[in-house]
């Protein structure tokens, strides 16, 4: 058992570590199962098995005291499913998860496929476009607000809100602080949406409000729960869809393989999410001393689960830095987290991703992509711009 946990002066939130994170992640993995990051007062957990084990030990590695790297956000988010432990967590997830199961989402399959076909057709006509604005953002924005029951006004703010929400899950550094006014706008709007009648009847959001009226949910917690639906449903999907276009464009042989065999699509999406995990990591609070691979992390400390690093851990993956849509264990990635807090929206993410990949496979012979530039975001692996052209065939 290790009694002294090593420290590092690697700064995961420096611009370079954000736009090109994978070297830093490897260095952390090589140092040890847990590495103390003094400026952020958190242990970095960067290896696959340790992240997996911690995520599955939700009593020892608790979410109820927050999953961000700063106290103000951790306090603010209490009451959300993300920031809760059983039994309350299970009660919440049982309610908010209902419309998100693959079974419940089936009714939307045709619509999603139709929208995806329309989008790809228009991109084929267009010539060169921006993957982020014209593809990756467009699709979730065209389906998610409606499903949530959002009124038409306020939608233009969605992306900014989602981005601010995720920035704030990191440390309260300059870029998170700059986003606070945006966040406050979002919280104000969410409180407004919690008023009965504001969200479209029959929508997921309206169903939450109805649950508070029926007494199965505490009304005070409603804004946080509405946030549970809104914030994670955009930026993350935008990230994955952008990365999908980048990676499939950069691996034309694999693109042809997918066109020839559509059963590769689900694994391809998993491999995209493994390779470029949309969420870099989220934290946990230790409620007791816990051992990870022989290193004891003391009770009361905070540990950052680095999904982006776990997904590239050479201890778990063969040639982890190789993108391979036929990778046999791609679905074991932790890009959606894992365990009781495993992304409740992953069915929706898959439905969107599969519909778009299907349309692309039907219509597009060649995906040409330029060089991506990355956003400097605390928590999301976010492409800023990526030019692309689709060629029909």
């Amino acid at each position: 058992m290790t009694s002294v946990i090593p420290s590092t002066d690697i700064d995961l939130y420096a611009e370079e570590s954000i736009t090109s994170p994978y070297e830093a992640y490897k260095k952390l993995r090589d140092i040890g199962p847990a590495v103390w990051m003094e400026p952020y007062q958190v242990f970095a957990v960067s290896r696959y098995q340790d992240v997996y084990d911690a995520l599955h030990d939700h009593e020892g590695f608790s979410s109820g005291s927050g999953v961000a790297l700063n106290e103000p956000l951790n306090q603010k988010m209490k009451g959300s499913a993300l920031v809760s432990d059983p039994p309350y967590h299970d009660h919440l997830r049982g309610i908010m998860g209902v419309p998100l199961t693959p079974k419940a989402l089936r009714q939307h399959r045709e619509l999603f496929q139709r929208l995806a076909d329309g989008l790809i057709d228009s991109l084929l006509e267009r010539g060169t476009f921006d993957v982020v604005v014209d593809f990756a953002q467009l699709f979730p924005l065209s389906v998610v607000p409606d499903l949530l029951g959002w009124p038409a006004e306020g939608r233009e703010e969605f992306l900014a809100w989602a981005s601010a929400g995720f920035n704030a899950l990191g440390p309260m550094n300059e870029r998170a602080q700059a986003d606070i006014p945006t966040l406050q706008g979002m919280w104000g709007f969410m409180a407004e949406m919690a008023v009965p009648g504001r969200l479209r009847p029959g929508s997921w959001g309206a169903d939450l409000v109805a649950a508070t009226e029926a007494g199965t949910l505490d009304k005070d917690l409603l804004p946080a729960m509405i946030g549970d639906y809104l914030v994670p449903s955009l930026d993350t999907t935008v990230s994955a869809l952008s990365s999908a276009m980048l990676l499939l464009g950069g691996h034309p042989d694999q693109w042809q393989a997918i066109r020839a065999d559509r059963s590769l699509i689900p694994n391809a999406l998993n491999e995209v999410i493994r390779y470029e995990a949309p969420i870099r990591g989220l934290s946990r609070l230790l409620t007791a001393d816990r051992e990870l691979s022989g290193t004891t992390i003391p009770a009361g400390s905070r540990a950052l689960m680095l999904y982006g690093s776990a997904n590239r851990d050479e201890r778990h993956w063969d040639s982890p830095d190789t993108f391979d849509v036929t990778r046999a264990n791609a679905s074991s990635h932790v890009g959606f987290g894992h365990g009781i807090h495993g992304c409740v929206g992953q069915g929706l993410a898959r439905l969107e991703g599969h519909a778009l990949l299907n349309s692309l496979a039907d219509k597009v012979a060649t995906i040409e992509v330029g060089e991506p530039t990355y956003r400097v975001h605390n928590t999301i692996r976010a492409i800023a711009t990526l030019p692309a052209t689709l060629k029909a065939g």
Partner: protein
Amino acid sequence: MKVLVDRHRCEGHGLCEDAAPDLFEIDDAGELVLLFDGTVPEGQDRQAADAVRICPVSALKAE
């Protein structure tokens, strides 16, 4: 080896079916169907363990 399903946690993502198609099936209604009685048949322990490990929402437990 026994496998227990937490029906409250199961959301029907189907990774168990991919890992152990002889043991788990997501039916046409999107529900998980166990193709065994909970006690893992002879010679399928590895597949069962794979399925338990890969369930993304902790709905499966091995005993």
